[in-house]
């Protein structure tokens, strides 16, 4: 195509010996076959739906759901709220477990990946055993195993406890929560201001360094802005420390915050499983950076931490990020295994809705739409990040 001479474009001939004619012919044939199959299936589906008296459409979203939902990030009452609300709760629950899972799996995976390269033989071996074992056992089996273990915990009455405030029983984990007051809100605002301030100060420091070669210290200002400022605001507003403690009341606990056994199982299972893959990615990423890079950094007089941050990590990240993206995608998709242990995510609520309303096609469309959107968002974000850290070649 990029040759110096371009071949003059010839008119399309209706002849078997013209490759362009053949290409068009075959495309028409194949697209025609696919269209025929789709037409046949759609026709069958319409007839089947008519025979079963199922009306297609999303009108059912406005009907009262009546399905009990154990945990929800938004207020929900099965007696009044609609299927639409229930399905939104499903999305929120999926996002909740996927987001927390991604963060925890990244942390654990990175630690384990570094652990496998440790000079300590025992640490290297034990992390190796962990990675090799858990990645070769189906995630579903692991989830069922953890769930059965949690179910086998004692009842709330004789719950396992850490001190007198964290309780572990077959109804999940109970822990104290802070009673949220306006002082806390202001402290949060102050923290966000601190984050912005740190960012600006860091940029300023960077510009000074570029201009003068001297870099003003960042960390004391950052410490002041990120910790001092919120603490100060919180203290000025009276430092409220009211805590909602879980108290055993009859057969269950009252007060405090709960982590449900379903959520806990799913999170632990997803994190432990995905972390094995992330660990391998991190390990190979670090190993991909040549030892000479460390030595060269040291020869320039950089500290070990600076070499890691400014030389090794940026190069390792280039190797790490693309496969990491697919692991994040896998984690988000694997969160659909929630349906097996009764955590009410997208799949689970769609399943219930589908059984109650018979709206199979709409239910499947909803599931597909949600997961495709999540997958696409993760892909887009990670591609953006990847482009940001990619090697800028001349």
């Amino acid at each position, binding site marked *: 195509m990029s040759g110096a001479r371009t071949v003059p474009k010839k008119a399309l001939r209706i002849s078997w010996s013209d490759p362009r004619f053949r290409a068009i012919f075959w495309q028409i044939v194949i697209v025609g076959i696919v269209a025929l199959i789709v037409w046949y299936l759609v026709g069958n589906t319409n007839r089947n739906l008519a025979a079963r008296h199922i009306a297609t459409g999303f009108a059912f979203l406005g009907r009262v759901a009546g399905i009990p939902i154990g945990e929800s990030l938004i207020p929900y009452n099965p007696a009044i709220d609609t299927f639409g609300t229930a399905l939104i709760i499903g999305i929120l629950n999926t996002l909740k477990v996927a987001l927390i899972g991604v963060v925890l799996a990244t942390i654990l995976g990175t630690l384990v990946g570094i652990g496998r390269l440790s000079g300590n033989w025992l640490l290297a071996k034990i992390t190796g055993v962990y990675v090799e074992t858990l990645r070769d*056992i189906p995630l579903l089996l692991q989830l069922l195993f953890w769930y059965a273990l949690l179910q086998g915990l004692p009842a709330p009455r004789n719950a396992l406890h850490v001190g007198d405030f964290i309780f572990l029983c077959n109804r999940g984990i109970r822990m104290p929560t802070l009673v949220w007051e306006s002082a806390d809100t202001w402290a949060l605002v102050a923290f966000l201001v601190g984050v912005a301030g740190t960012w600006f100060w860091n940029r300023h420091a960077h510009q000074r360094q570029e201009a003068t070669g001297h870099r003003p210290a960042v960390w004391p200002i950052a410490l002041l802005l990120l910790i001092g400022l919120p603490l100060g605001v919180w203290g000025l507003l009276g430092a409220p420390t009211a805590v909602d403690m879980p108290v055993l009341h009859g057969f269950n606990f009252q007060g405090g915050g709960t982590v449900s056994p379903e959520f806990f199982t799913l999170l632990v299972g997803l994190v432990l499983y995905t972390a094995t893959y992330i660990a391998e990615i991190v390990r190979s990423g670090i190993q991909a950076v040549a030892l000479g890079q460390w030595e060269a950094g040291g020869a320039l007089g950089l500290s070990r931490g600076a070499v890691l941050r400014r030389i090794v990590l940026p190069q390792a990240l280039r190797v790490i990020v693309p496969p990491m993206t697919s692991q994040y995608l896998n984690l988000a998709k694997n969160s659909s295994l929630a349906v097996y242990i009764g955590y009410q995510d997208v799949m689970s609520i769609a399943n219930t809705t589908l059984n109650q309303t018979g709206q199979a096609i709409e239910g499947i469309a909803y599931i597909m739409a949600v997961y495709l959107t999540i997958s696409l968002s993760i892909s887009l974000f990670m591609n953006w990040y990847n482009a940001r850290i990619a090697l800028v070649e001349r």
Partner: protein
Amino acid sequence: MSQTTVDAVADPRMTGARARPPIGSTGPLGWVRANLFGSWWSTAVTLLLGYVILRVVVTFFLWGVVNAVWTVPYSPQGIANTAACQNAKGIGACWAIISDKYRLILLGRYPYDQQWRPAICVLLFIGLYGVSAMRRFWRKELALIWIGTLVLVGVLMWGGVLGMPMVAEDQWGGLPITLMLATLGLACAFPLSVLVALGRRSTNLPAIKMLCVLYVELIRGVPLVAVLFMANVMFPLFMPQGVNIDKLLRIQVAIILFTGAYLAEVVRGGLQSLPKGQAEAADALGLSYWKKTAFVVLPQALRLVIPPLVNTFIGSFKDTSLVLIIGLFDLLTMGKVALSDAPWQSFSTEVYLMLAVIYFVFCFAMSKYSRGLERELARAHRR
């Protein structure tokens, strides 16, 4: 560790007391010092981990061996009396459930006196994997071996010939189902994935390319549970009235379509990593597209993708466990079925451990093989 020998060889004059390195820098003691107690940080890690590992091993040994219940008495009606297990709950394992249920879990509800047939099928599958792993069988005849084995498995499972009574699909279960779903999934998805990968790479067929991209991205964007679910709920709607497709077949088709999308990306990777000169040389020789693809491009590209192909197979082997949701009796579902028997209900840990060991043995063997192969191919490439 080999430092002493090297020094001794390098300098034969160094004998006697002076040549001896200080105690504690070589030998087992030196190794321990270097690898376990190299620094205060390493020492702390070793002590902490050592303590935790020791606790775990001792606890597991007490639970799994010392306090375990290996057999339970049966009533004259053949009902197990699991009181001993119930008493040991929490302190000792109940391995009696394994000896009671292992045939049910491994071979499902297949007629008891005919269970040698699924057992042979399992061996056939393992033999098939073994043969496929050997490089001297990597040629066209391998496809015939696969077809032959799969036909033989079908004959053995269904029966109805050679004096073997007919056994319907709904009585199949356990390991043969798991192996069948995974193996047939790969065998049928592979040709599909090659076609899709070629279609996605084609430059002059935009409509076909778009279809292929749509298929691959749609399937890869949704979880397998959703696809299985779809196969279970939507498939009956797609079929003309009165036509009922067996559940096993429906799920098999879903797994093939799912695996096909992932395999297509693997194959595409192989096609992409092949130098362009190969295809151009074939063009220069005047080969047609199909001849070029069949004799020049694919034989080289497919060789490159064997390790990721094995990894995809491992993934789909593990993923077959998800058929639990639609009640197809694979290995995991049979484990759940075994646990639904009233006297044994509370001994899930033991059953799950057994299942974990079975899955692990298969997956670990395959991943070990795939990594060895990867190293070997990389070496050949470097040369």
